[in-house]
């Protein structure tokens, strides 16, 4: 669907909400994923500068997550242009996406809206190697490490000091100490960021409520891929959730479906399918920032080549360029 058709949906949402809408989609199409990362801040800045100061700004967000530091920068940037910041969640807004929601005065969630826990898995060069693929590093879940230590503490009974030392040594044998250090740093970081983001709200929650929200979104959900519905986000976690009326919900869902179709989010990207001769160049859009003022896209550009030597029928995919591109 063309931008003009999407613009009519964006305008209709803006009319319903008396706001200005910026859409931020990080595509989760297989083979060409994008994620929340610091390079989006300059893109968002371009849209905010064009929209200028507004009484209300809504961020229409679809993401599976990404860098956990970016939400803090991004929410602060949006708040330079508005006193009232909301996030519209049509479908998935996991991990770093949920962190962005914590900094919002209002989270608009339809029946399909989903948030996720903010217990990231961390990976650095010292993480354990993947046994199935030595080039890869296995991400370590922060909550898994803390859960292990909590279990050891629970089982240690009257021998706390001795058994906790043993449990920690055992952990350090399996995971490099610098990877454990990275886990601990991120454990502290995620709580600090979530707390600071909640405090950015116009009417921030009380201190007790902040602790409860952060606990709920980290250790109490027990699974990183737990999908939080609007009912759970509202009643149990006590986030400022707004249930849209039927008309607004339809607009929100239509806009999401539009992006999902445009970026073919539901079908894997297989550049080999495009190959009719020995070589073809391709460009694929896998992320977007769009408002009534313009559109930016994250584009992967590359070359697909068929090689019949040393093995017949081998297809090589070379990514030549990747980055944000202004389309409108």
């Amino acid at each position, binding site marked *: 669907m063309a931008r003009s058709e999407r613009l009519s949906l964006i305008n209709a949402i803006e009319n319903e909400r008396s706001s200005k809408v910026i859409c931020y989609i990080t595509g989760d199409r297989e083979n060409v994923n994008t*994620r929340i*990362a610091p390079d989006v801040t300059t893109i968002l800045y371009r849209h905010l500068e064009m929209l200028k100061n507004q009484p209300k700004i809504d961020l229409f967000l679809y993401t599976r997550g990404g860098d956990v530091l970016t939400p803090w920068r991004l929410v602060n940037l949006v708040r330079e242009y508005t006193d009232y910041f909301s996030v519209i969640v049509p479908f998935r807004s996991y991990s770093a996406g949920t962190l962005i929601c914590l900094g919002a005065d209002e989270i608009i969630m339809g029946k399909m809206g989903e948030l996720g826990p903010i217990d990231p898995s961390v*990976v650095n060069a010292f993480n354990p190697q993947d046994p199935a693929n030595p080039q*890869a*590093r296995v991400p370590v879940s922060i909550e898994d490490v803390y859960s292990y230590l909590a279990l050891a503490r629970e089982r240690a009974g009257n021998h706390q000091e001795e058994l906790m030392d043993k449990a920690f040594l055992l952990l350090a044998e399996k995971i490099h100490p610098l990877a454990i250090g990275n886990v601990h740093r991120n454990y502290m970081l995620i709580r600090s960021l979530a707390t600071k983001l909640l405090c950015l709200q116009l009417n921030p929650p009380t201190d007790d409520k902040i602790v409860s929200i952060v606990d709920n979104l980290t250790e109490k959900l027990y699974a990183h891929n737990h999908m939080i519905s609007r009912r759970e986000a509202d009643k149990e976690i006590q986030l400022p959730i707004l249930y849209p009326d039927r008309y607004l919900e339809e607009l929100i869902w239509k806009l999401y479906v539009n992006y999902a179709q445009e970026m073919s989010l539901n079908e894997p990207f297989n550049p080999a399918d495009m190959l009719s001769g020995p070589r073809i160049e391709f460009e694929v859009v896998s992320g977007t920032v769009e408002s009534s003022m313009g559109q930016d896209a994250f584009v992967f550009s590359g070359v697909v080549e068929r090689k019949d030597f040393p093995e017949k029928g081998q297809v090589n*995919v070379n*990514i030549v*360029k990747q980055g944000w591109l202004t389309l409108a």
Partner: protein
Amino acid sequence: MDNDNYTPEKVQFNYQAQDTKYYYLTDGSGYPSADYQFFYSVKDKAGLVVPETRANSANLIKSSDYLPGR
């Protein structure tokens, strides 16, 4: 179809893919398949390769695990 001659057969789906996909983590927003080659960087020096479990409704069985008659 003659129902008397109908013999139920076990349908075998031969999925090439397994349940894990590897991705190449760069500093920016891009997060492409690790199977690709990258013109601008050497994969083992910059960035990290990470596994990601594929969510799928199908009950995937690797073809190597499939034994006829099971």
